Structure formats: structure tokens, C-alpha cells
């Protein structure tokens, strides 16, 4: 069923980073930003990269000054493309272009009742999404002339995103035969292949996001049968402690008006809390991912960057420095912890 898989993916130089990188994490952690930055970093070193979103309003392409992307990949930067999954369009492609069942599609699938069923049936949209990732990395070249070395997927927010991974189990329990069974078999093979697909979990150094991440990582490990490639803690802040001037905050605080003094206390409390939690979270995640935990700086605090595109660019630079530690070793769990 998965005979069409090219064993030597096009132009893929480092087989330790899988063909598809699925970026998971709850809403607001910077999943799209990280996906775009990872994609940019890979494109910068010469790969053809597709960024896949599945959202009501596509966000990455506009950061690059392009209109919102739809199902057809649009070029947003050199060697970098973006697309947004849309069930109806992908269903059409699946039946008409892939299965060559245009007549069946027009008379049955596209009928209001079957379409409504497909929209409503649990797991079918997710199956089509994961199936589309399969297609993008196998037949898309032959059937649609789409050639990508790497696909970076900005997965839907936590609950939904992680449910993509246990899809084969849930769908298999339906006892399906026919096309559905074929699809399930395909995506099962893809999800089981570490060279084909891997997950990257994004977290924030705040209490609530941290506890979710600690739930998400074991879940991904269970569903995929292997740990995520890496965890990324986004929006980390530099330490405020200064050896040379231990009491600088107090000295500064004394000179402020009461309003500003209170605000400084809130701000430094927040930044210190983040620094502490990033450390706790990366300790808690130690050994739970294949390549370790990577910390990304809050760009506002370090580089003063605020526009999404500048942030993506700055993060892509940081990511480029980690890629070797992900790719050159089977296990270097804590290497990325050093910033």
C-alpha cells in the first residue's frame, strides 16, 4: 500500500530530520512562528520547504507579504512555500486527480448528504489531512508537479493537533474496508516511520503551558511509538541577575515613582518566573525527547524585534545553529539546552 514511498527523498541530505516535521503545541505558544522559522532555516540552507497550516485564517503567508495561502502552495520566500488545508478542496483532488474517480466524486461524494456526512464524521477530516501529508511526500510530484524536500506542519492547537497522531488507532476501530482502509493503511505506515514523520513540541515558560506540555509529550510518545524529536521552549528571557551589580534592581527601583516601581516589580517578577520555569520545564522534559530541549529567546527582550517577519527571521537564525545537533547525532539530549 505504501509502495509509492520514495526511499531516498529528493535532495534530503540529513536523514535524521524526517521528511515531515509536525509542530505541536497549545494555542498562543508561537507554533506558527516556530513553524515558519524552522521552514525558513531549512529553506535558507537550500531545501525546498512547504509550510502547511490547517486553520480558518492562514497567517504565515501574510507575514511574508503574500496574500493568505489556500490549498495550492504559494511561494512566499526563496525555496519556501505555504498552503492552508481545506477539506473540500483536498477531497476533490483526492477523488478526481488521485483516484481518477471524477464521476464518483461528482455524483456521490459531492452530493449534499455524503458531503455532510464527511464533514460531520469523526476523524474523517483529520484522516484526509494526514492523508494529504502522505500525498504531498509521495505522489504530489507525479500527480501535481509539486516537489518538496521537507514539509513543516503547523498542527492545530493541542487537543486537536495531538489527535492527528492516534488517528490510525481510532479509525482502525471503525472496522473500515475499501478506500478508507487503504487510506488508514497508508497514513499508519507514514506515522510509524521515523524517517518520514517526527513531532516537535512547542511550549512556553508559563505554569499552565508547562503543565500541558508535560501531558502532551508522553501522549505523542505513546501515539507515535517514539518520543518527539525535540521540545522548544519559546519566549525565554535572559537572566536578570548580574554578578557585578547584585542589587541593581533595588537601586533602580528606589529611583522610580511608586507607579513605575510597582510595574517594575511585576515585570521583573514575570521575567524571573519565566526564567525559572524554563529551567524547570527543560529539566522535567530531560530525556523525554530524542534530541533534547531547545530554548528560544523572547525577541522583544533580546533583539527588540516585534514584527512577525523579523521575529521569524531572528528565530530562523537561532534554529540554524541547532540543526547540526539534531542531525549529526542519534542522541545528544541536553546539547541544545546551552544557549
Amino acid at each position, binding site marked *: 500500500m505504501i509502495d509509492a514511498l520514495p526511499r531516498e527523498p529528493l535532495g534530503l541530505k540529513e536523514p535524521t530530520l524526517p521528511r515531515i516535521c509536525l509542530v505541536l503545541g*497549545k*494555542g*498562543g505558544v508561537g507554533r506558527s512562528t516556530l513553524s515558519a522559522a524552522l521552514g525558513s532555516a531549512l529553506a535558507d540552507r537550500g531545501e525546498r520547504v512547504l509550510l502547511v497550516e490547517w486553520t*480558518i*485564517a492562514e*497567517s504565515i503567508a501574510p507575514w511574508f507579504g503574500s496574500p493568505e495561502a489556500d490549498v495550492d502552495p504559494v511561494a512566499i520566500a526563496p525555496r519556501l512555500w505555504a498552503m492552508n488545508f481545506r477539506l473540500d478542496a483536498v477531497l476533490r483532488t483526492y477523488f478526481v486527480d488521485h483516484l481518477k474517480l471524477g464521476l*464518483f466524486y461528482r455524483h*456521490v461524494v459531492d*452530493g449534499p*448528504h*455524503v458531503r*455532510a*456526512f464527511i*464533514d*460531520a464524521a*469523526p*476523524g474523517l477530516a*483529520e484522516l484526509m489531512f494526514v492523508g494529504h501529508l502522505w500525498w504531498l511526500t509521495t505522489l504530489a510530484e507525479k500527480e501535481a508537479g509539486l516537489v518538496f524536500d521537507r514539509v513543516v506542519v503547523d498542527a*492545530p*492547537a*493541542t*487537543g*486537536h493537533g495531538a*489527535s492527528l497522531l492516534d488517528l490510525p488507532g481510532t*479509525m482502525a*476501530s*471503525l*472496522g*473500515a*474496508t*475499501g478506500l*478508507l482502509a487503504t487510506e488508514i493503511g497508508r497514513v499508519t505506515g507514514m506515522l510509524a516511520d521515523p524517517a518520514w514523520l517526527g513531532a516537535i513540541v512547542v511550549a512556553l515558560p*508559563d*505554569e*499552565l*503551558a508547562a503543565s500541558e506540555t508535560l*501531558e502532551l509529550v508522553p501522549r505523542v510518545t505513546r501515539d507515535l511509538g517514539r518520543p518527539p524529536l525535540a521540545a522548544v521552549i519559546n519566549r525565554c528571557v535572559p*537572566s*536578570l*541577575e*548580574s554578578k557585578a*551589580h547584585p542589587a*541593581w534592581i533595588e*537601586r*533602580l527601583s528606589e529611583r*522610580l*515613582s511608586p507607579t*513605575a516601581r510597582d*510595574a*517594575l*516589580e*511585576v*515585570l521583573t*517578577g514575570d*521575567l524571573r*518566573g519565566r526564567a525559572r520555569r524554563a529551567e524547570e520545564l527543560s529539566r522535567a522534559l530531560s530525556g523525554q525527547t530524542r534530541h533534547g530541549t531547545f530554548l528560544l529567546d523572547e525577541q*522583544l527582550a*533580546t533583539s527588540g524585534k*516585534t514584527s*512577525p517577519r523579523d521575529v521569524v527571521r531572528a528565530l530562523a537564525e537561532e534554529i540554524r545553529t541547532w540543526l547540526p545537533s539534531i542531525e549529526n547525532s542519534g542522541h545528544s539530549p541536553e546539547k541544545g539546552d546551552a544557549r
Partner: protein
Amino acid sequence: MTARLHVLLGAGGVGKTTLAAGYALSLARSGSRVGLLGIDPARRLQGALGVTLRDEALPVTGWEEPGVAPRGALNAALLRPEDCLRRWAEESASDPESLAELSRNTFFLALADRLAAAADVLAAIRVAEWAERDPATTDLVVDTAPGLNAIDFLRRPKALTVFLEGRLIHWLRAVAPSRSRGALSDVLRGGARRAVGGLSRLGGTRLILELGDFVSLVEAMLERMLARLDKAQKWLHDPTTEILLVTAVRDDAADAAHKIAGALRAAGLAPTATVLNRALPAALATELTRLTRSDPSENQAPIEPPWPREAHVIATYARLYIEMQERVAAAVAPLSPRLVIVPAARGLDEDARASALTALGDRLRNGLQAADR
């Protein structure tokens, strides 16, 4: 319905959950009988309240003013789709056998498993159920899933209506008893045969039989769910309902607020207020910048030891934060009649959680009332 509904919407990470918890605590302290429904599939609300919540509403304590007999009450629940479905299946099942059959049905299991993604739809139903079960509730505060996901809260979801409103249900109902009688196609004609045949070509006959069973078993339950959903939607459109659009000092959160406001408009709704959360006073940036600037031309008396690099980092951060805050405030102000600015507060992660949360809720309520005047 007499209770007032308060719905918080916004991008992920803007502090909706914390604000919802604080708002509920503050309302309870001032004497209301408050319900707090967390619907985040990732269960963030319990972290914010520091208690373990379940699907069934539980009384929350620890917020009462010391030495004062509490006049209000706070009941909180966390939406757990699988528990909701089980409870709704129980209340609608005609007999124990069909309930047992339903709980074995693979479609039902898959539905229960998958509904995490549709938590907002269930939440709307849960909101109406809440009013049925605790009619004395005066205020119901609802936290929602991040971003546009929450918009399902406002819609009549296809996932439920398709089974009831399409003709598909009649065909599938016909399929269910046919299992004992024989071939699927015998009971179906014309368009029905084509649709069901198409489905079986997609997924196999067994799948269709299971689906037929599912539909006939679940019909009463779905009808009840839809009736509650309609009630919740009427409630949402009630003039007393408060829809709070929450944003933090982040450009992407402001973008999300715009998109949510657009989706609300499309549903015939509008935010009652926009809440800019975690604001800092502009004075912080100006004072830090002035203090850490080392400009010899100003001829100041030399400040003892010079400021370390960290002080400059903080000053720059504060300045950029305030700039972004002003930009975000300007961007979201047109989205609703009122903009409430909630200052960043300390202590929300620490031990004094309930009092810090209540203080946050008080600030939000004061802000909303001040904007009312």
C-alpha cells in the same frame, strides 16, 4: 433564563482562563451565585483556580472574605466531552440495553474520542444544561478555546445537525434494522441507495451498519443536544449577555481579536467590551529610559556604579512593550464600544492565588463598570 452570561474570547495565551476565574471569584464575593465553565480541552482552568475540577459542577471555596459570611456562591466545572456525552446518553436512553449498545458502538466511541476538537459546541450545550440544573445561578462565566476555534460556540454545528436535518438519517435508520434482514441494498432506493452505496464504497458495509445503529441509538440524544444548543444560542443573543474580547500586548493577539470580532459579526453578535490584559504603565518605560541613559552631555552627577547590561535590557524591553501596548490598544479599540485596560498583576502564579485572582477580577469588573458610565 435569568442568569447573565459572560463569555471570554481571544487568542491563546492572552489570559482568558485566568481572567475568567478572577471574574467569577469577584462576582461570587460580591454576592452573586456564579457558575464558571472551563471548556479548554487542555484543562487550564484548574491550574488557574488551584483546584481539581470535574465535568459535574463542584462548589469552589477559599475565596470568601475572612470573617464575613459569604453571600454568593461559586460552582465550577470543566467540560470533559466524554463525560458530557455519557451523561447525555444516559438521560436520553430509552432502556439500559440500548445504552449499553450505544456505549459499544464504534461511531459513538470515535465521536466521544474526537469531540475534544468540538469542545465549544458541547460547551454551548453545557451552558444551557447548567441553567436547567441550577436555575438559581445569577451569572455564568464561560472560558473558551483559543482563537477562532471558539467560534463554534456561536454556530449550529454541522456535526450535529447533519444527522438530524438531512435525509441521510432516514436512510441510515432504515439500514439499522436491516442488519437482521439481509442485504443493505434491499431497503434502499434511488438516491438513498446511491448515497449509502457511496458511503459503503468509501468505508465498507460494516461501517454503514455501525453508523445506522449509531444514528438510531443516538437520535433522541442528538435532538436534546440541539434543543439545548438553540437555547444557548438565544441566550448568547440576549441583550444582557456580555461578550468579552480579550487580547494581550501582542500583535498576533490583536490580529486574532480582529478575526474573532469579524466572526462574531457574521453570527449577528458583537463584543460588549475589549479587554487589553497585562498592561504596564507608560511611566515605567519613560522612567527606566531616563535613568539608564548614560548621556554625559546632560551633565548629571555620576550615578554610583554604572547600570549593568541587564538594566538596559529591562529598559529596552519596557519601552518596546509600551510601544506594542499602544499599538495593540489602538488596533483593538474600534472592535467594541469599550476598551478595558487590565494592568499586569503580580502573584497570580504564587500561593496567594485566590486573593490575587479575585483582585484581578475586581479590576476587570471595575474597568467594565467605569467604561459603562
